[in-house]
Structure formats: C-alpha cells, structure tokens
C-alpha cells in the first residue's frame, strides 16, 4: 500500500489530470463516458430522423451533418456509419468504460475498505488509454470516406476491403487502432480490480461480506480479462488482412471488377473470435448494472437483499455460462447444426440464474419500506427492462426460432431493452446514488423524477414497437424500408419510434443539466445521505487520499442489515460491532 505516496495535492496537473487517486479517475471515466454517451445518443436521433421520415429533407441534419446529409437527406453509407459508431460508442465507451470504469474505480476501494487501487499508476494509465481511444474513435468521424460503417461487429470481408464501402478505408483503420487501445485500457483496469478485491479487503471483509456491487465488478473484471484479449487477436488479424496481404478471413472474393488474390481464409473465424468477446461483453455491461441495482434496492427498500448467497451464485453462474454461448449469434452462418443445438442449450440456461435474480429483487421489495429516490426509480426501471428484454431472449436463443427473426428489428428491440436500457438504467441509477460520494453535492430530486418517468416511457416507446417490425420481417440496418412494398404500412411504427426517441433524447438533457449544475452548485452532501450500510459512507465528504483520515474501519457484519429486529435504527453500518445476541447473516 505505498502506491500513492507521491501525490502532491497542490499540483493541479497531478490532482485533476494525471491523478492516480481512484476517486478522481472514477470521475474522469464518468465525464468522458457521459460525453461519449451523449454523442452516441445524438447519432441515434439523426438516423431516427431518416428512418421515421425517409428521404425528407431535414434542415437539422443538413446543419449538423453537413456533407453527410446533402440537401438535408442523410446519405445511405453515412446512415450506416452513424449506426456503426452509435453501437460502438454505446457498447464500449458508455456501457463498458463509462459504467465499469466509473463505478469499479469509485466503489471497489471504498466498499472493501482499501486506501486505493492496488496500482494507482496502472489505473491512471487505464483512464488515459481510454481517453486516447475515445479521441481516435471521434477522429475517425472526420477522415476521408468517413468512419467505420460495417456495423459495430465489423464483420470482414466488408470491413477488410476498402473497395467494399467508403467506411472501410482509413476510418476502419482508426476504429481498429481505437479498439486495440481500448482493450489495453480495459485489461489494465480489470487486472487492477481483481487484484484489489482479492488482496486489499479490510479486516473482517470476507468475500461473503462484500456488497453485491463488488461481487458484480469482480466477475465482470474476470470476464473482461478472459474475453477482451480474444477481440484484440481478432482485430489484429483483421488489420493484417487489411494492410499486410494476409487472408485469415478472406477467400474467393471478386470485388470492384477484379478477383482478389486471397485464398483459404474464413469470415466465420472472425465471427467466432468476435463473439467470444461479444457475448460476454453483454454481461460485462449487465453485471455491474445489476450489482449497482442490488445495492440501491436494498438501501432504499430498507430491507436486506433477498437471497444474498443466491445472488452471488447467480452472478457466478451468469458469468460462467456467458462464455459458453457466443454461437447463438451465428445460428444462420452455416455453422454445423449440431453446434447450433449445443449453443441453444447453453443459451437458454442463462435464463435460470436470471430468473433467480428477478425473483430475488421482487422479494426484496415485498414488505419493504421503499423510499423513491431517483436512484431507486431507475433500479425499479432496470428490473422491468431486464424482465421485458430477457424474456424475448428465450425466443432468440432458440435456434429454430432465431432463423426467422435473426438480424431483424426483433433483435434490435431485444438487446436494446435487455442490455442497452438495463445497462443505462444501472449506470444512471449509480450516478444518482453515488453522486454525493463523487462530488460531495446532491442532485436535484425533482429533475430526477421527471428524468425517470420521461426516460422509461420514451424508452419503451422506442424499443417495444421494434418487436412488431421484427415479426413483420424488417431487417435491421436498413437505410429505409421504402424499397419494399411489403413494408409500406409499417411507416407509422417508425414515426412512433422516432418521436419517442426524440422525447427520450430531450429527457437526457434534463439529466445532463442536473448533473452539470449540481457538480458546481448543488447543495452540500451529508456524510451518509441515503442512510446506507456500506463502508464508502464512512469516509469524509471531502475527498482525501487514502480515503479514511485515521485507521481503515474494521468490518463486523454483512452489508444488508437493514430494519434488523431489535435494532433502534433501520440500518446498521458494516463497521458497527455485533451486539451480544445478534445473529450474523453474512456468514
């Protein structure tokens, strides 16, 4: 524990920029992630204009996008570019780095009772690599040919051949460079989280006394370490195919008027490598969100989380199964039907631990004493989206059913609800809950209430109708549905979705206003505003290096002693010693 002795508080550069303090790094991740998230969201609004009113000139698009929307109509290849970068930013920059980076960094040392991360320097490096990769990704928007446009999964040969589409030129090279750096950032972060959780827990903080947030971050970090290097390998081989004439993914291709000299590679290999990360990635997003929700639900229901051990068990089970299911993204690639059967089996198994989690949340609410803080509202919203989106997963995970809804809007609806909304709700929930811990000030509750109700209404307004589009056979990533008479009467659905998307987008600006205003002008936070049990609320409001001014508190109980019979208050923080007759629920 000597990693943070070199800090110099008087030095602005090292306090705010090259800080090795986990709390500052968490804030850096939050601000960068939120910034990227708003860019990703704005992109979705731009392409929703095209989808709702295809071919109609829009002065907004012309003003903002310039040459991407000649005469106010978005160009087809730029539509794909927006879709691609929207997906990349939301999945990786907002919901991986923004979510895990912020809350793992903030909460791991604070909730396990450590003075900082195991390696403050690696932590700082992790943030700055993330920053660099964000810059590269944004820079790719301005290069000739535009950014990568082959979908966020960048399947070759489309992504490997510059002749295939404008975005497969320099834009794609930058995408690969950005993601390679992103992966390094993620690995440095994840290794740090794992080591910190295993080695730096305070006295009494056994693994089964850790808050569920920490369990979720722990399993997430392990998933990241196991799967991100595979994506690294995948994009590296892609880079070789693009730049050095190899053909790992290419074979028998005739494009732009000539046959290429490539032989023997297989694009399916890329798909396997990509989804070996791609599917665990879903849980890299979801698990932290679920961990945050567990904590917020217990605190605000003033009730222990129901089935603490079952919750840990299901986090572990979800983590384990998640690396065995990647093939369900590939049922119709021509993969062996036997493999399809195996992946159907493993995929549907995920529903069991997920069901356990849902029922445990419901039982936690039952006979609770619920305080509706904005964080609690988003936690309830997450349970709803997790159910709604999770259930359609039972359809998509079934190979026979997937044949006809694969790559349709049904999938878009499904994953946006179960991963996009749940992930975002979890992140927003965490921001409302731990904002006082991060900035020492409070967010405005009324703006929070309005933000929540507008968000959940518009979110379902956007994504629920997509199931109908999918069941009508509309493929995703179509610039317009107007080329097919079959889809002519679906335009109402698209208009509805686009209008709700705009309401939802505006609602996020209410949140942004609340966030920015409160960072500087919000009322000062008390030490433990939500009367919570976990250790982070025992630290002083003003951030100090090493987190606790004196000795690190010792932990005597599990984190969920809310409304314990016999206790005077409805919460007992973890550092309060056990009473003589008290039963220890954590062990």
């Amino acid at each position, binding site marked *: 524990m000597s990693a943070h002795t070199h800090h110099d508080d008087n030095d602005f550069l090292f306090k705010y920029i090259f800080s090795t303090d986990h709390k500052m790094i968490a804030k850096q991740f939050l601000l960068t992630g939120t910034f990227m998230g708003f860019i990703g969201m704005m992109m979705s609004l731009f392409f929703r204009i095209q989808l709702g009113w295809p071919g109609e000139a829009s002065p907004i698009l012309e003003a903002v996008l310039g040459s991407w929307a000649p005469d106010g109509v978005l160009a087809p290849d730029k539509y794909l570019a927006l879709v691609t970068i929207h997906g990349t930013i939301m999945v990786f920059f907002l919901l991986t780095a923004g979510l895990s980076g912020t809350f793992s960094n903030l909460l791991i040392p604070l909730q396990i009772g450590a003075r900082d991360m195991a390696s403050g320097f690696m932590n700082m490096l992790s943030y700055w690599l993330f920053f660099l990769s964000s810059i590269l990704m944004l820079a790719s928007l301005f290069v000739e040919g535009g950014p990568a446009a082959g979908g966020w999964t960048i399947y070759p040969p489309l992504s490997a051949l510059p002749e295939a589409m404008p975005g497969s030129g320099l834009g794609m090279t930058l995408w690969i460079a950005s993601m390679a750096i992103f992966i390094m950032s993620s690995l440095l972060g994840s290794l740090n989280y794992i080591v910190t959780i295993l080695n730096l827990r305070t006295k009494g903080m056994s693994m089964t006394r850790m808050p569920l947030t920490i369990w979720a971050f722990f399993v997430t970090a392990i998933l990241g370490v196991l799967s991100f290097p595979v994506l690294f390998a995948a994009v590296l081989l892609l880079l070789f195919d693009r730049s050095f004439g190899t053909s790992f993914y290419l074979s028998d291709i005739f494009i732009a008027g000539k046959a290429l000299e490539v032989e023997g590679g297989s694009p399916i290999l890329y798909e396997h490598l990509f989804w070996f990360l791609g599917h665990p990635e879903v849980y890299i997003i979801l698990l932290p969100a679920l961990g945050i929700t567990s904590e917020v639900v217990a605190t605000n229901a003033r009730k222990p989380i129901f089935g603490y051990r079952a919750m840990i068990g299901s986090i572990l089970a979800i983590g384990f199964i998640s690396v065995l299911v990647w093939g369900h993204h590939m049922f119709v690639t021509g993969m062996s039907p036997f493999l399809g059967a195996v992946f159907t089996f493993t995929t549907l198994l995920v529903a069991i631990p997920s069901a356990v989690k849902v029922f445990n949340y419901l039982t936690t609410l039952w006979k609770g004493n619920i305080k509706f803080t904005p964080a609690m509202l988003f936690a309830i919203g997450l349970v709803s989206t997790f159910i709604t989106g999770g259930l359609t997963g039972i359809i998509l995970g079934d190979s026979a059913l997937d044949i006809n809804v694969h790559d349709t809007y049904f999938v878009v609806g499904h994953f946006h609800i179960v991963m996009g909304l749940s992930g975002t709700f979890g992140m927003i929930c965490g921001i409302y809950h731990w904002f006082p811990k991060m900035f020492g000030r409070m967010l*405005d509750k009324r703006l929070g209430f309005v933000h929540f*109700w507008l968000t959940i209404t518009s979110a379902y307004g956007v994504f629920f109708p997509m199931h109908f589009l999918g069941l009508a056979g509309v493929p995703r990533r179509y610039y317009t549905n107007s080329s097919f008479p079959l889809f002519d009467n679906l335009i109402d659905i698209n208009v509805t979705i686009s209008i709700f998307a705009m309401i939802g987008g505006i609602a996020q600006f209410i949140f942004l206003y609340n966030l920015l205003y409160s960072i500087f002008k919000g009322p000062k936070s008390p030490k433990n505003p939500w009367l919570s049990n976990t250790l982070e609320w025992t630290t002083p409001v003003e951030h100090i290096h090493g987190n606790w001014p004196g000795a690190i508190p010792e932990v005597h109980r599990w984190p969920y002693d809310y409304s314990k019979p016999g206790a005077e208050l409805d919460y007992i923080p973890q550092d309060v010693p056990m009473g003589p007759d008290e039963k220890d629920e954590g062990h």
Partner: protein
Amino acid sequence: MLDLLIIVSVVLGIIALAQLIKVLELAGQARGENSWDVTDRDNKTQARLMPVFLVVYFASIIYQMVAWGKYLLPVSASAHGETIDNLMMTSWIVIFPVFILTHILLFYFAWKYSYDKNRKAEFFPHSNKLELLWTIVPTVVLSILILYGLNTWNNITTPVSQEEDPVLIELYAYQFGWIARYAGDDREFGYANVRNIEGVNALGMDSTDSKGWDDKIVRAEFHLPVNRPVQFIFRAQDVIHSAYMPHFRAQMNCVPGMTTRFGYTPTITTSEMKGITQNDEFNYILLCNKICGAAHYNMQMDIIVESAEDFEAWLGEQKEFLPIDGSPKALEVESIEVQEEATDGSASTTASIN
C-alpha cells in the same frame, strides 16, 4: 411538416415542465425542504405513479397488438415454417404470463410498500424453500422449451434427401443483388469460382465443366413449385450477405469462400397467398439481411410459388448456360479436344473455339 410541429411542441412541453419544476422548487424551499431529500409527499406521488405506469405500459402493448398485429408476417408458406410458428406460439404462451405476473408484482409491491416512517421493513434475508422454488420451476419450464426447440431445429436442419426429388437452386449474392441458378436435368451444378468471373459470366462458371452446361441462370425473380422440397445452396461474391425469405421462415448467410445450405418445401402458392393476405399486389421476396454496404437496404428478388406444371413451363423458357454462338451441347460432342485446350485457358478461350 406535421412531424416537425410535433417535435417543436415536445420541446416547448419540456421547457414548460422545466419552468414548473422551478416553481415547485421555490415552493419547496419556502416550506423548508431541500432539493434532494425524498419527502413523504414525494414517496406518495411516486408510489401512485407505479400502478399508473403499469396500466399505461400494458395498455400501450394492447394498443400495439391491435393496431400493428395485422402487419406481422402471414401464415408460414413452408412446411417447416409451421413447426417454427408452433414453437413460437408455445414460447409466447410461456413468456407472456411470466411477463405480466412479474410486472404486476414489481409495480404492485413498489406501490404497496412505499415508505412509512411508522413501519419497519420485514427482515427477510433468505428462504431456501423460495429460492429452490424459483430455481427449479424455471429449470423445468426451460428444459421443456429446450427439448421442444432442439427437436424442431433437428428436423429443420436435416438435409433434403435425393429421394425426395428436390429442386436444386443456388442463390448467389453480390453487392447489390441476387442471381439464382437452377441445377438442370443432371441435378448437379457446374463448377464455379470468382476467378472465372468475366463479362456476362457473373457467376464465374467454369465453361469446361459439362455439369454446368444445362444450368439455368435467372435474375429479378425465381420460381418454386409448390409442395416439392427445394434445396438451396448459397454463395457470395464479395462480402457476407444473408438470404432472408421471411414468408418461408428461412434464412441463411451467404459467405465468400464457402457454400452454405438450407432447404424447405413451399406449401402455399403466390396466388393463394394473395387471397390469404387479401392483397393483390402480394409477392414473396428474398432480401439481404446482413449488412453488406451502402445499398444493403435494396437487395431484392421476387419469389413466385406456383403449381408443378406452371413451374416446369417457366423453367423450360429459361436459357441454359453458355448460349454464346451455338449450343453448349455441341461442345459436348467434340468434348475431348475442346476440354484439352480449355483446361489451361479461361472461359473466353472456350468461346473463341466455338
């Protein structure tokens, strides 16, 4: 223009809302409340909104089903598609009650157990019985779904056997269109490779391979006979495409460098389906369902399902491969010398011999 008006009114609505919050905030401050601590009044309001939201959510789903249900795909036009639709219906029957029940519980509990300072929450950390219950019940239900699903999947993916006399069709995808090739009387496709692509030979067929001489190549639309199995072979020229035929519940990726396959038996002719959908303009379609470039959204081919007689008549009208200057059958006669010369040459060499 109407839409723009809607957007403008939404923006104005939000501004109005923001002003209202400002007023509420000032009123709250006057009463001595702060801007973050959740009061009893807040709890009551939020708790009441919970069932309201639930009702709105469910009502909107019912509305969507009524308003948009008629736009969903019509009955399956293929034999295996019916088994998929049955499996789909079974899945919905399992999913919907769970969805409704859990949502009712979630929002009911949230409303019912909102904060009351005179009450204490029940300390109920775990119950092995309950946890076992909701591990076992989903396990059993999912086991049934898995078995049912795998059974359906195995039936669908079993290749069509030659005894069933399938129509052999190759679907060839390129940026941005489709070409279909029928195997002809020998029921085998001639060898083809992208390296042979030249001029009109868009499929890259090897003109020295006699198996290809009776292959028939069609564009814009292809025909299928009703109630006879069709075996599709898929190829792609440049990037990954996906052959999606939604009415037949059929989809398979077309991948450069390899062939993929899928088979089905059409059961409803195009004209019958026009009656079922009450739409005279109705047409079965093949579309691309894997992002493949800027015009991905417009890669289509019509599919016509008709009686066996009509199908044979249509196929008879289609031209065979290599009709350049005389029939390819003539090549067959002088096959020995032609093939010798052609093995080291390309399609163009063969043509010049003719």
